[in-house]
């Protein structure tokens, strides 16, 4: 229901809550198209780092964000991108807060996010399914090896395919 529809004869409190709901939905929609600065194939929502969007009694929209890694250099840029996106969406005053607990997990990457990662050439994290072989994103061979536990960003490791001999990236489980 839109805020406008709710004004027609509806009691006052649902009207306010509908407007608030629409504001929250607009904020989520805006965040859903913000690209991660280091893995632009993913949005911040796909990555699972946006924890909540909550209007506060003082009218400020609070957005909870969790860092993937404590030292991730993209953390500050992500905050700025979120602030810009919310401003662009016209959701009014908003504040980004850091949420540490519970700690972010690669399990929170959405199914959509996993599809996008794979299409981008980064093998998605195996998480609970640790027996699944890490298949080469190019030739799909499972004859692959880890060549470095760390890669170009804190969240990825470097692997190599023994069949097509191409190196590729794997999103670390954490």
């Amino acid at each position, binding site marked *: 229901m839109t805020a406008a529809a709710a004004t027609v004869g509806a009691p006052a409190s649902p009207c306010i809550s509908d407007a608030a709901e629409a504001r929250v939905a607009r904020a989520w929609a805006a965040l859903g198209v913000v690209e991660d600065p280091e893995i632009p194939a993913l949005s911040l929502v796909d990555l699972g780092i946006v924890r909540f969007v909550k209007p506060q009694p003082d009218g400020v929209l609070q957005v909870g964000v969790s*860092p993937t*890694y*404590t*030292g*991730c*250099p993209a953390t*500050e840029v992500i905050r700025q991108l979120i602030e810009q996106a919310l401003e662009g969406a016209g959701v009014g005053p908003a504040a980004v807060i850091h949420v*540490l*607990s*519970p*700690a*972010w*997990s690669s399990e929170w990457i959405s199914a959509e996010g996993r599809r996008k990662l794979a299409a981008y050439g980064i093998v998605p994290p195996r998480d609970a399914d640790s027996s699944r072989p890490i298949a080469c994103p190019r030739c799909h061979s499972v004859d692959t090896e880890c*060549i*470095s*536990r*760390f*890669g*170009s960003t*804190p969240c990825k490791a*470097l692997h190599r395919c023994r069949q097509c001999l191409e190196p590729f990236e794997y999103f*670390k489980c*954490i």
Partner: protein
Amino acid sequence: MSAAATHVARLLFRYVLRVGDLSLVLGQRLGEWVGHAPALEEDLGLANVALDLIGQARLLLAYAGELEGRERGEDEIAFLREQGEYLNPTLVEQPNGDFGQTIVRQVLIGAFQLELYERLANSADDRLAAIAAKAVKESRYHLRFSSDWLARLGDGTTESHARVQSALERLWPYTTELFAEDDLDREMADCGIAPRLAEVRAAWSARIDTLLAEATLERPRDRPYQWFGKRGEHSEHLGYILADMQYLQRAYPGERW
């Protein structure tokens, strides 16, 4: 705040500095490898570990600043203290040496961080528990990296084995300090904020024995030890690290990113 609560906050401030300074100084040390590691992958690995450590230090030092209540932020605490105010264990300020020595230091301290964070994740202090629960995941990954290398070097050539065994002999005495319980450790454990160090030691010791066996290395004998970085009594090396690390803030006070 009641007198008892103020007392605990003051102790907690020092305790959080101990944990945070360990990450800060180790992160700074590992950063020295950037551009100098034996291979590009190892350069990335050490830099990534350093980055996580600096991230942990930021969270911990920012919290310490709040506990202290003198409006000092993470940067002021990291960059404007004097040597005697740093409470990191002396082990993490030891020079990098060759790649093998860095790996040995990393395994010894990484196993300690892992055991400590696992227990701090259940701390009676919620903020410390949240930071530890985040850091423990990173520490587990760091230890996989360093212990892989320890096994490759220890169980490698005669030369690599000899080098890491000698680094182990050199660094081993510094591990004593990690488990030397003092009043601060005791009081923090009494209020359920920190674990008993005897318990951390037992878990660390068992883990280290397994890793050393995999790497075909011999556990050195414990020897008398005289350094206590965690009380602010440091080896000569910390001063040089700080000179480098604090240069910018000393030369351009208050400068920000």
